[in-house]
């Protein structure tokens, strides 16, 4: 995108996108550190590199009404939905003040007051349930939409196909966003997909598909916004494939030997944060100093989230049997 087209956006909106991405980056770096210090355990899947997808997409939502669902790589989506970094870090520390009260951990970030319905650990499982949540809007004749995020690995699960067929048949307001970060764990997506262009996978159900550059937050935003509008106004579901890349291993335990340094470096050259930052600097709506101050702010927020998490209490033993049933 040329920087001239930036002029169609309010400056505050652009700054918010930039800050949201930067916060995810700094927060995730902090998570990596805390994992190293064994403050966080288990599976921890960082979102670094993919920030533009969650931020650009979720900017198209009305979070008072719309829903967002994703997989276990969910810290970025949670932050983009506006979940408090303190609550996220506390969740990662397993504390009672965590957004899932210490019961969910990294893979299960929830805050229904912000439209964030998780955080699913079973690959592909959020696809049918997101589709079901879209049913609500049609059933109640309300204007709302569901964003359903999943990976290039998840798209091959049977439930993806079952869900798309029904979404089309039942005119459900949902946007399926496949975050193609090129790998499902150690598997290059080419090795497990019969087609290279994942966005055509909606074609069998007459669902329009589109590939977008997932490193360009504005391109993501524009495509998702138009899909969101179509979904809300006409009940037309869409499939978007966002081409992106994760800079870190699949999870903290993955050394990522299946890809080359050169490949990783080449994606870092198209870093989503730098792309927007440079566009804004070129358009003279951002100075280097301002950028540095945002960066400081995001680092401070992340540090503060650690302090909050450290000082928070553990959940009580009696909470074990809470919330098993409603």
């Amino acid at each position, binding site marked *: 995108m040329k920087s001239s087209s930036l002029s169609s956006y309010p400056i505050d909106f652009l700054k918010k996108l930039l800050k949201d991405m930067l916060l995810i980056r700094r927060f995730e770096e902090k998570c990596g550190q805390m994992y190293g210090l064994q403050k966080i355990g288990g599976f921890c899947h960082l979102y670094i590199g993919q920030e533009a997808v969650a931020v650009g997409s979720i900017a198209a939502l009305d979070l008072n009404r719309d829903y967002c669902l994703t997989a276990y790589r969910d810290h970025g989506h949670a932050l983009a939905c506006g979940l408090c970094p303190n609550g996220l870090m506390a969740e990662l520390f397993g504390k009672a003040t965590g957004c899932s009260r210490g019961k969910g951990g990294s893979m299960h970030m929830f805050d229904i007051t912000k439209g964030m319905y998780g955080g699913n*650990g079973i690959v592909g499982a959020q696809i049918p349930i997101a589709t079901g949540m879209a049913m609500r809007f049609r059933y109640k004749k309300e204007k709302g939409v569901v964003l359903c995020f999943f990976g290039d690995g998840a798209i091959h699960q049977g439930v993806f196909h079952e869900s798309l067929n029904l979404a089309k048949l039942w005119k459900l307001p949902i946007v399926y966003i496949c975050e193609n970060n090129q790998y499902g764990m150690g*598997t290059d997506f080419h090795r497990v997909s019969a087609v290279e262009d994942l966005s055509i996978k909606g074609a069998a159900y007459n669902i329009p598909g589109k590939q977008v550059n997932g490193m360009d937050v504005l391109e993501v935003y524009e495509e998702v916004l138009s899909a969101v509008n179509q979904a809300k106004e006409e009940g037309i579901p869409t499939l978007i494939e966002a081409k992106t890349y994760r800079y870190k291993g699949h999870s903290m335990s993955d050394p990522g030997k299946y890809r080359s340094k050169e490949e990783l470096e080449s994606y870092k050259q198209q870093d989503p944060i730098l792309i927007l930052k440079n566009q804004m600097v070129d358009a003279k709506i951002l100075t280097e100093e301002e950028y540095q101050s945002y960066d400081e702010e995001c680092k401070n927020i992340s540090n503060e989230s650690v302090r909050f998490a450290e000082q928070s209490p553990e959940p009580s033993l009696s909470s074990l049997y809470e919330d098993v049933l409603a």
Partner: protein
Amino acid sequence: MPIITYREAIRQAIDEEMQRDESVFILGEEVAQYDGAYKVTQGLWKKYGSERVIDTPIVEAGFTGIAIGAAMAGLRPIVEWMTFNFSLLALDQVVNNAAKMLYMSGGQIKVPIVFRGPNGPAEFLSSQHSQAFQSYYAHIPGLKVVAPSTPYDAKGMLKSAIRDDNPVVFLEAELMYAWQGEVPEGEYLLPLNKADIKRQGKDITLITYSKPIKVVQEAARQLEKEGISSEIIDLRSLRPIDEETLYASVRKTNRCVVCDESWPVASVGSHVAWLISKNCFDDLDAPVELVCSEDVPMPYNHTLELAVQPSVEKVVAAARKVLYL
């Protein structure tokens, strides 16, 4: 005798059987080029190539069903489920096809297949990734279900499972992969239907299987300090259950605690406790106790997740209870 890990024992079994029988192959997520999510299949792709060590997409229902079909047509697949949590997606294929084919074809179609992978809780993985699903499989006629607890048992039983003409569900555990034990150099096979007495004793019978064996062994050591002699029985096979070995022990000790890390309702442990209560009724000096997981999904918080599971303290307390101490 060489000492190897549980992980290596399983790898050796797969390797030897692939070497012996060309119709044996393995498929699953990350089993080939990545050397396995838990490195069980390390080196096998290099050795046997992509025809026999096969990476699949993340499609449990699909590749499990495909493997069952291949078995019906005469191949001998080993299905690796990255964990048993994900086996739920394939449960229909296992229950309705693998387990039923021989019966509903009137004995015409055999399904020689092994389903294996880590089962049960690991650490810090929360509700969807820390589940012990053995009861689901043990419930199903037409399956054999085994859960060995030592490298020696794992190797001998996996080789038998691969050679067996029935579908065998083979349960491992992430936290057991690094466990070590003696395994002889040469080939050996172990039966799929026999429990093993892991420790001889006379005062109380402790029955368990798979990962909780270490908890139970430690409990036995503590009880010994109080002068209590425990006999530990490792079920090894969950379907069928080697009832005679259990009864013989309980008839000797007259007291029994069963330890099972799954939920209490309709579990292997509750079934075993019922079998003993019924069949050793006249020999028991106290009701059988069951030490199992708390009846809740697994929480992420580590203190809570430890509190959920069987522990040495819980086993010792149960033992003291049946001993009226």
